[in-house]
């Protein structure tokens, strides 16, 4: 499999590079561009990004394996990241997780066979006042209830 940057991604990256004192410093935003384009960061992209940032590929891999926000495998269209840290847990995060487990038949790290949903249990996302909460793709959804979860799954699953 080969990986290519689209024209648009290239333009964004070129602009990003101008913002930093050196190319290497742009590693995180550039990796985000790749992830945005492809949904995750395939191994083939590592040498490519390395070349752009003028570092050896191993340095890129170190970065993307350090941050859980960078994905290295394809996931479902909707990424349900449910917080399981203290506040959410006290307010019933485990029930929310169980509900998703049963409803979609997936556990932590798994994706539905129709590639619609991926469930990830995560640590505190800093939205404790709305516990229990989850992050759905780029958005926070707080004060979760069983109904709310059903609604999310129903709406997104269509």
């Amino acid at each position, binding site marked *: 499999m080969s990986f290519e940057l689209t024209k648009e991604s290239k333009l964004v990256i070129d602009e990003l590079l101008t913002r930093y004192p050196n190319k290497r410093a742009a590693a995180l935003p550039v990796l985000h561009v790749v992830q945005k384009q492809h949904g995750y960061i395939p*191994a083939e992209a590592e040498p490519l990004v390395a070349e752009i940032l003028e570092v*050896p*590929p*191993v*340095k890129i*891999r*170190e970065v993307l*394996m*350090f941050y859980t926000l960078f994905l290295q495998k394809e996931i479902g269209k909707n990424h349900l990241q449910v917080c399981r840290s203290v506040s959410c847990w006290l307010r019933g995060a485990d029930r929310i997780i169980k509900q998703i487990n049963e409803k979609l038949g997936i556990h932590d790290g798994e994706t539905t066979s129709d590639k619609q949903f991926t469930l990830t249990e995560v640590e505190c996302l800093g939205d404790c006042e709305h516990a229990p909460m989850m992050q759905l793709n780029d958005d926070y959804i707080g004060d979760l209830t069983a109904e709310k979860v059903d609604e999310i799954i129903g709406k997104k699953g269509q």
Partner: protein
Amino acid sequence: MPTITIDGKELTVEKGKTIIQAADEAGIDIPRYCYHPGLSIVGQCRICLVEVEKMPKLQVACYTPVMDGMVVHTQSERARKGRKDVLEFLLVNHPIDCPVCDQAGECFLQDYYMKFGLYDSKMLEDKNKKSKAVPIGKHIVLDSERCILCTRCIRFCDEVSKTNELGIFHRGDHAELLPYPGKTVDNPYSVNVVDICPVGALTEKDFRFRTRVWYLDETNSVCTGCSTGCNIEVHTNKKREYKNEGRRVTRLKPRFNKDVNEYWICDEGRYSFTYVDAADRLGVVMKRVKGELQESTWAEVMPEVLTALQSAKENNKRIAVLGSPKMTNEDLFALKKFASQTLGVSQMPVTVLPKEKPFSDDFLIREDKNPNTKGAGYLGYDTDHKATRKLLDDCASGGVELLIIFHHDLEAGFETELVKSALSGAKTVVFVGSNANTTSARATYILPSCTYVEKEGTFTNFAGRVQKINRAIEPLGDSLPEWTIIRNLSRKIGKALAYFEAEDVFKDLTKNTAAFSGMSYSAIGDGGLVAEENGKLKQGDAKAAAQKTETATA
């Protein structure tokens, strides 16, 4: 220049240096894992904590630059407690498999535990399991559980070999040192990462389970792998010989010399000692009887060689000598003196260039794979390959009665046909060398000589640095240093050379050769000596910053 005080000692330190560098220069030992004087500074492991007056927190000595008036305490209660806590963290998931770990005995974890740790483990949880005994290169095995993530090996591959194979992946207690997928650590300098790994995470395949390090003896020497002459330690196991499987040299380790190899040696050099006890090693005197080489003795062969020399001389027949750049300055000097004084030989070639150009780079590895071509040149030998060809041509055309060859495998550099006719053209061929080859197989006599770990002497590296080798093990079988063989011949024919030790030859040599004038074994010392153009001698800097911990007092 800032003046600082470390443990009550007042020091004037160059600006920009860090506390650990100042301490190293003053011989004050501060523990370290990630800091290595040959690599960039990262301040990663925190074991080097020291107390600095007026600074509220403990500071990392490796990363904190000196400032005028700084007062540092390396042994205060707080500093020691800080290090102890760091150590406890580093060992949280450590497997402590010292009984089966090759590093045991030269492990910084063990050393610092004994110095600062001495606590009882508070770990009740299961330890993290990681991969063990993973081959990550031709010579290297990785045990991830033992790794303390100091990144020394990564920085070596980034900064010294510049090959970027290694990285740390994942994070927290899942963080693991590994090669980049699809890569192996097989650069020409790879095994240095084993040397600098402060723990037993990286071990050398060749050394694995071979011996415990405390049975090893260390002898300072010089690598003979190429003309760079990297400074090394020869580690031998004389205490448990029965464990050696017939191999007397256990391993070579680089020895610091700022002016030659700094902290490093190449892999080729590291394993270049194997010829010492190889299957083709020559340990017995041999002579050809009815076309076959047979074992003999010095007592039998020496008179025969002498007779052959004598008769060639008396009949005005030509005697030719082919020296070798593998010989020490002492060997070469004794040979030249004997050959010119007694045998009437004036042309002295030494060089046989291999047919294919050997690997070299712009760091340590040089194309000339001989330790002493430069010395041979200084001593008046002809180091041109063509001179050797001419000598072989002369032999082939029947112009040479007796040929003495040192070490060379002529077929490595010349056409087999030429070699054959040259060796059969001379009536007598005396081969002096440590290992058998296609040339020795055609000799009339084989006189076994010592390898560099079995004798004393000096080599001159490509840059003209004269460096000393020392005897680490006894000569194998009948083998003798080349200069001794020559001296023994000289006692019976012509003018006797009055040498008893290699040093006697060296003394004579310094009196007679400009490039060595004023030198002595004691002046050469551990760092070597270069004769500079202005007639001054320049000593090498072999004083490494505190690398080992044994010297320090806790």
